[in-house]
C-alpha cells in the first residue's frame, strides 16, 4: 500500500486492522478432482464444449453407421446441408450476443431471395444488380427490427415475431407463391446459383456455399474480437446500462447489429438459391428456429454478452452430423427430431454447469 503525503486520519476502530490479517479473503484450497479440473478448463474455454461434442459424435456415428457416414464425401455433404442454417446462425448470433433474439432471420432471407429472383429472372435486371438490391433489402429489414427495438422500445422477441409475419406476407405477395424454376434461372441469371457450384478435392465435394459459411464466420469473428465495435456489441449485451454510462452509444450499436444481421440474411438468400437450385418461397420455413438451435448448442448465452461466434458454426455442424448419422444408421425421422431437442437442452445445461466455477 502506498503512503499518502500527510498521515491519514484513521478511525480508532480501524487501528485494529493493523493487527488483523492483511489479505482480503483466503480460500482453503480443496482437492481438485478430475471433474473440477474439467469444469475449470471448460470455464476458461467454453467454446471447447461444442467442439468436443462434435468430435465425439463424428467418431461415434462413424462406428454406428460405418463408411457411408465417415467418408469425405458424406462429411462434406453435411457441411453443404447445414450451410444455409449456418449462415443464418451467424446472423442470429450477433443479435443474441446483444441479449436479443431474431425470429425473422429465415423469413428475411426468403423475402430477399424472392426479390433477387424476381428482379433477376422475371424482370431481367443484371444479376449483380438484383443480388445487390437483395442485400440492401435484407439490411433494411434488419434495420427495421433494430429501429423498433431501440426507438419504439419493444422487446426483440415481440418485434421479430411481428416482422417474421410481415416478411412472410410480403414474400407471398411478391412471389404469388410461385417458385422460379432452376432452368429459368440458368437461362436468365445463372449468377444467382453461384453458391451451388462446387469443387472436388479428393472425394469431398465443397460447395461455394459451405465455403461462404466458413468465410462469414471468420469475418464476424474478426469483427467481434479484434475491433472496438465488436467489444461494444459484447458490452451492450452484457450490461446495457453500464455500456451506456461508459460512453457507448447503445442504441446506435444495436441498430447496427440488427442491420448487419439482416445483411447476412441477404447474403444467405443468395447462397440459398444456389443450395436449393430454384427461388422457392415455400422453403426454409423452419429456418428461424433452426438458427436459434444452432446458436444455443454452440454455447452462446441467451442472456447476451457471452460466447464465441465460432460456437454456432460448430452447433450447426453438430445438428447436421446428428441428422446424417442417425439417418444412415436407419433411425426414423421422428427420433432425429427427438435427439435434436435433447441436444439443445443438454447444451444449455452444460453451459450453466461450466459457468459455476470457483475461479
Amino acid at each position, binding site marked *: 500500500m502506498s503512503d499518502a503525503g500527510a498521515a491519514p486520519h484513521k478511525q480508532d476502530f480501524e487501528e485494529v486492522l493493523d493487527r488483523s490479517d492483511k489479505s482480503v*479473503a483466503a480460500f482453503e484450497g480443496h482437492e481438485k478432482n478430475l471433474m473440477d479440473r474439467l469444469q475449470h478448463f471448460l470455464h476458461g474455454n467454453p467454446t471447447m464444449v461444442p467442439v468436443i461434442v462434435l468430435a465425439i459424435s463424428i467418431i461415434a456415428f462413424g462406428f454406428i453407421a460405418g463408411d457411408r457416414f465417415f467418408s469425405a464425401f458424406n462429411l462434406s455433404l453435411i457441411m453443404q446441408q447445414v450451410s444455409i442454417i449456418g449462415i443464418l446462425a451467424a446472423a442470429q448470433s450477433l443479435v443474441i450476443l446483444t441479449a436479443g433474439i431474431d425470429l425473422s432471420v429465415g423469413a428475411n432471407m426468403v423475402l430477399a431471395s424472392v426479390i433477387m429472383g424476381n428482379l433477376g429472372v422475371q424482370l431481367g435486371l443484371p444479376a449483380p444488380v438484383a443480388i445487390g438490391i437483395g442485400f440492401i433489402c435484407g439490411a433494411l429489414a434488419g434495420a427495421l427490427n433494430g429501429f423498433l427495438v431501440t426507438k419504439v422500445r419493444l422487446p426483440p422477441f415481440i418485434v421479430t415475431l411481428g416482422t417474421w409475419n410481415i416478411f412472410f406476407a410480403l414474400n407471398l405477395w411478391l412471389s404469388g407463391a410461385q417458385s422460379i424454376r432452376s432452368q429459368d434461372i440458368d437461362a436468365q441469371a445463372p449468377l444467382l446459383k453461384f453458391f451451388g457450384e462446387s469443387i472436388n478435392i479428393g472425394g469431398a465435394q465443397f460447395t461455394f456455399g459451405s465455403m461462404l459459411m466458413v468465410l462469414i464466420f471468420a469475418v464476424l469473428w474478426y469483427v467481434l474480437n479484434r475491433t472496438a465495435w465488436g467489444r461494444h456489441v459484447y458490452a451492450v449485451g452484457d450490461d446495457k*446500462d453500464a455500456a451506456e454510462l461508459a460512453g457507448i452509444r447503445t442504441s446506435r450499436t444495436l441498430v447496427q447489429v440488427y442491420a448487419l444481421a439482416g445483411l447476412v440474411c441477404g447474403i444467405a438468400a443468395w447462397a440459398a438459391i444456389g443450395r436449393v437450385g430454384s427461388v422457392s418461397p415455400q422453403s426454409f420455413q423452419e429456418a428461424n428456429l433452426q438458427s436459434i438451435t444452432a446458436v444455443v448448442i454452440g454455447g452462446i448465452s441467451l442472456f447476451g454478452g457471452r460466447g464465441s461466434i465460432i460456437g454456432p458454426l460448430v452447433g450447426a455442424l453438430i445438428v447436421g452430423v446428428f441428422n446424417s448419422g442417425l439417418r444412415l444408421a436407419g433411425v426414423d425421422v421422428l427420433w432425429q427430431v427427438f435427439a435434436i431437442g435433447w441436444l439443445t437442452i443438454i447444451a444449455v445445461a452444460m453451459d450453466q454447469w461450466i459457468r459455476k466455477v470457483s475461479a
Partner: protein
Amino acid sequence: MTVQPILTARGLVKRYGRVVALNHADFDLYPGEVLAVIGDNGAGKTTLIKAISGAIRPDEGEIRLDRQKVDFRSPLEARDAGIETVHQTLALSPALSIADNMFLGRELRKPGFRGRWLRALDRDKMEEVARQKLNELGLLTIQNIRQAVETLSGGQRQGVAVVRAATFGSKVIIMDEPTAALGVKESRKVLDLIQDVKSRGLPIVLISHNMPHVFEVADRIHVHRLGRRLCVIDPKKHTMSDAVAYMTGAMEPPVEAAVA
C-alpha cells in the same frame, strides 16, 4: 493572487414537473482539492452532480469549467471536456476483461493500415497501459489483466473504476458513493486510492453518506439542502455531528461558513 475555482455553477435550476430538484444551486471546486458533497436524500445533490457530469441539462443557470461556459448535452460531452465520473454502479461490463473495461468506448487501435482500414484493436498496448496504471495506483493484487471483471471483489472493481477515471480524467473526477457497498478493509483501500489520485493534482468531487470517510479525506465539505448549497464547511473546524445537523436542518450554519 486568489486561486480560481476550476469548476463552478451558479443559479442552477432543474424542475421535474411540480418538483423543484435544484433551486438556484451554486457550486465551486478548487484545483487539487477533495470536495465532499453531502446532503440528505431528496436534497438534490444527485441532481446537482448529474448536472455537472452532463447526465441532465439544467433549466436555468450556468456552469463554467476553467472559466469557460459549458453546456453538456450528454455525459460523453462532459467526458470529452475532462470530467470523469465513477458511478455508483461502476459502469463496468462484467464479462469483459479489466483491460477491455479500462478502454471501453475509447479503445486504442493499431497504428497504420491495420488500425485504420481493418480497425484492429491494439490489445497488447491496451493491456500494457492498463497494467501500468493499475500498478501506479497500487492495485497490485490483481494478477491477470485479462480476467473478467466479474471475478474481482467489490473493492477491486471499485479500484478499476477509479483507475479508469483517473487515467482519462484530465480536469475533474466525480465519485458517487465509492465506499457504500464495501467492507472495512476494502473501503480503506479505496480511501487510500482517493488520496493517491489527489496527490497527482486532480480535484475530486466525492458524494458520500459515510461521515467518517468524508471527514477523513475531504478538504472542504459542501452541504446541500433543499435544492441549494447551504454552506461549505472545513472538516477541521466542525464535527461530524455539526455536519449532520446542518444537513438535516437541525442547526443553522454559522455566518462565515454560509454560501460564498
